[in-house]
């Protein structure tokens, strides 16, 4: 419907952060009554873009106009006043308060409680979002919590509603309810900007789509006219190819996971379902998938942070499922979790102390429980030198390092412990290009020396570059592994579970 004047026009928006251009010359139009998808991989710049629209981030250059008048919100209040509302991926709700109290907390001039409760009931019935204003938030499901956020937005009577990955925490039934609401809203003339990387959802719901890749608009299209795999190709680019590597000698199976199931550790976690994989010496196994499909849980199960059934994980033929992280380290199974600050490293501790954190056994940094700080310092210094970590010295706190440098330290700390098996999650997330290349090279070198490596990542380019075999995680399940070489974008898209989502969407109608 490009003949009508757009509700929101975005032109030439650019935003750069140190080391990365998040958005470069991004422009598109949003029309009243249309659902528009913003599509892209993690790190493509979707979040930065919507934060600019919602007044959380100011663009370096470029303009926006709302109904023909210039629009440059200085903060979210200004955006809301202009009729722009946003539902975030992560909710900001207080468990101990009830629904009406939570909604009133987010309002500038909350009406009296009785009026508000009546309004909440009214809106929730009008849009088919069943919600009792007196329920305590702590008792609600993720879908119901999302309804609070949506109703909070609808009470402002928005002209444009931004939804950031709304279905990532929903059950298929809840997705169905949400879609009906969104269709009703758009029929009433509200423009909806829908951010997702679930392709089938977008095909089912959206009237138009803008595809972002590395901060740039690579395509504008009508999703219903494209197949899921065509959209995936637009999203990840045509140039997915595995670089031919020096022929690695693949040895015997060292790590086996068989029938591993694990309940979700917390409400927003993913339960692992019957995961089976085997890993041979000298190979890199890439595990792709959209965030929140069980990657963190799989890493915890492999590192030993979340002990599993004894026989679910075997290392060199011996069952290790019941062992904790240190016992697994002693046997040569090392890991590097995704979250650098607070998980892989303690932010306020020095690099020396952080070296002690995982390397005390394999580098003999402790004797009968007494710590050898001089040796830990030497080891930290070695990691700093070998992995080109930019820091004045090992005495500095982990949090004083940039993300990329700390990541080099964390990966280096594990690699220099000479692991038999190394499991890394998102090894180059938020890391600049040169550091990312160095980390990938180090992982390949480790495999070339005969270690087995599992790389969990959402970056398909990265996985194609380093993997010998590839498999995908979707909703806690792991697909069978396939040789990475010769794998087409289409096949990868299907492995990532696009087709799986489509079934659900059809059932939902």
């Amino acid at each position: 419907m490009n003949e009508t004047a757009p509700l929101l026009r975005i032109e030439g928006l650019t935003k750069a952060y140190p080391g990365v251009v998040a958005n470069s010359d991004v422009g598109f139009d949003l029309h009243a009554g249309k659902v528009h998808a913003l599509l892209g991989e993690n790190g493509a710049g979707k979040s930065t873009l919507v934060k600019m629209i919602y007044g959380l981030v100011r663009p370096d250059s470029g303009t926006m106009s709302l109904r023909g008048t210039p629009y440059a919100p200085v903060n979210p209040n200004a955006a809301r006043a202009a009729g722009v509302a946003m539902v975030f991926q992560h909710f900001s709700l207080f468990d101990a308060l009830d629904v009406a109290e939570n909604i009133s907390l987010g309002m500038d001039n909350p009406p009296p409680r009785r009026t508000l409760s009546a309004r909440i009931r009214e809106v929730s019935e009008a849009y088919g979002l069943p919600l009792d204003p007196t329920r305590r938030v702590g008792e609600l499901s993720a879908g119901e919590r999302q309804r609070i956020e949506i109703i909070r937005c609808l009470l402002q009577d928005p002209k444009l509603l931004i939804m950031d990955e709304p279905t990532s925490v929903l059950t298929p039934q809840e997705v169905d309810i949400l879609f009906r609401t969104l269709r009703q809203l758009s029929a009433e003339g509200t423009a909806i900007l829908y951010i997702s990387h679930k392709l089938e959802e977008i095909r089912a719901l959206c009237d138009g789509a803008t595809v972002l890749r590395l901060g740039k608009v690579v395509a504008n299209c009508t999703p219903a006219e494209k197949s899921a795999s065509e959209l995936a190709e637009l999203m990840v680019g045509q140039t997915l190819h595995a670089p031919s590597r020096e022929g690695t000698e693949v040895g015997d199976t060292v790590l086996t996971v068989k029938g591993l199931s694990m309940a979700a550790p917390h409400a927003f976690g993913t339960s692992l379902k019957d995961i089976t994989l085997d890993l041979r010496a000298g190979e890199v196994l890439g595990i792709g998938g959209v965030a929140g499909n069980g990657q963190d849980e799989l890493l915890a199960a492999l590192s030993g942070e979340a002990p599993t059934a004894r026989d679910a994980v075997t290392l060199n033929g011996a069952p290790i499922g019941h062992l904790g992280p240190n016992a697994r380290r002693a046997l040569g199974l090392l890991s590097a979790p995704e979250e650098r600050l607070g998980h892989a490293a303690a932010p306020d501790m020095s690099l020396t102390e952080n070296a002690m954190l995982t390397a005390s056994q394999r580098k003999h940094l402790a004797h009968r429980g007494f710590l050898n700080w001089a040796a830990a310092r030497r080891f930290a210094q070695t990691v700093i030198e070998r992995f080109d970590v930019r820091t004045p010295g090992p005495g500095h706190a982990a949090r004083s390092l940039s993300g990329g440098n700390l990541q080099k330290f964390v990966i280096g700390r594990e690699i220099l412990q000479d692991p038999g098996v190394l499991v890394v999650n998102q090894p180059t997330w938020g890391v600049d290009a040169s550091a990312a290349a160095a980390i990938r090279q180090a992982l390949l070198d480790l495999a070339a020396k005969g270690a087995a490596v599992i790389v969990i990542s959402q970056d398909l380019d990265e996985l194609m570059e380093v993997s010998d075999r590839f498999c995908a995680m979707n909703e806690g399940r792991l697909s069978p592994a396939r040789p990475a070489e010769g794998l087409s974008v289409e096949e990868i898209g299907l492995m990532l579970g696009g087709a799986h989502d489509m079934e659900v969407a059809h059932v939902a109608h």
Partner: protein
Amino acid sequence: MIRLEKRPEPSRFWTAATPILAVVLTMIAGGIMFALLGKDPVAAIRTIFWDPLFDPQFAAYSRPQLLVKAGPLILIATGLALGFRAGVWNIGAEGQYIIGAICGAAVGLAFYPMESWIIFPLMVLAGALGGWAWAMIPGVLRTRFNTNEILVSLLLVYVAEQLLASMALGALRNPEGGGFPGSRNLQQYPSAANLELIPGTGMHWGVVAAFIAVIFAYVLLNRHMTGFHIRLAGQSPRAARFAGVNPTRLILLCLGISGALAGAAGLFEVSGPAGQISIDFNVGYGFTAIIVAFLGRLHPVGILLAGLLMALTYIGGELAQFMLGLPSASIQAFQGMLLFFLLAVDVLTNYRFRIGKGAIT
């Protein structure tokens, strides 16, 4: 506009300087409070900080009191600091102190009037075990049922106080005391008495134990894996789990150590300066030790100094009460100010002040 800006790393200078700054600010604010009460602020501050140590008239009595009062504070605070470092909040040291005193005294009284060198060590052991067991109640409830150890340990203080009263009136009452509440005086029972080791210094076995605990805690925190895990768990629980720390074991260990040390402190007090189990035996060392632990920045050496400082304000405060007629509540307010200012200026360690308008990022 004044803004707080987070420092990339904690400032070493301010880590050391903030306690001194807090003491200075307390003196100023306390001086103002004393002036408002119609007393000479300089005389009041001098009476609290200077006279107990150097006044020719009072020092002979006050100086030994310094170690007598600092001993239990340091011993308890050292144990508490280990837990606080790990994020385990034992607020009920007062109760563990009472139970330690009851258990230790009970063992001593059971042997009365037998004389043997083994009795006192047995009492120490019983005192520590009593405190340990009392601390295990919040420990087990926390690790089994995920209750809040702050509340449970605090409420158990009041249970312990009732037990103390019951013991002083019942099971442990002196049969030759003419019906008065309170146990036999352990000071008059040589095998069970915790006497001054060097006359005129106030040094007793509890003070020795406090010094040993400080050294032990220092070595544990700086040179041992357990201490490293304690610090790690407090700063970054997920990283601690990644490093292989078992949270349950750590919680029980921290509560156990702090309980045992508080219990031992109670025993040293009941067999020494206090002499007997009485209804009002406890005077709040267990609560004041929380202040001492934070005043000492949860560092063993800092706690040593903070314990001595706190003891000084106790003794000096008493002195000011009867020399200048200051109300006792004003002395407590003065001590409260010390913790208040310490926590307030603590922000300088991790933040710096910036004046001017900041850019929104």
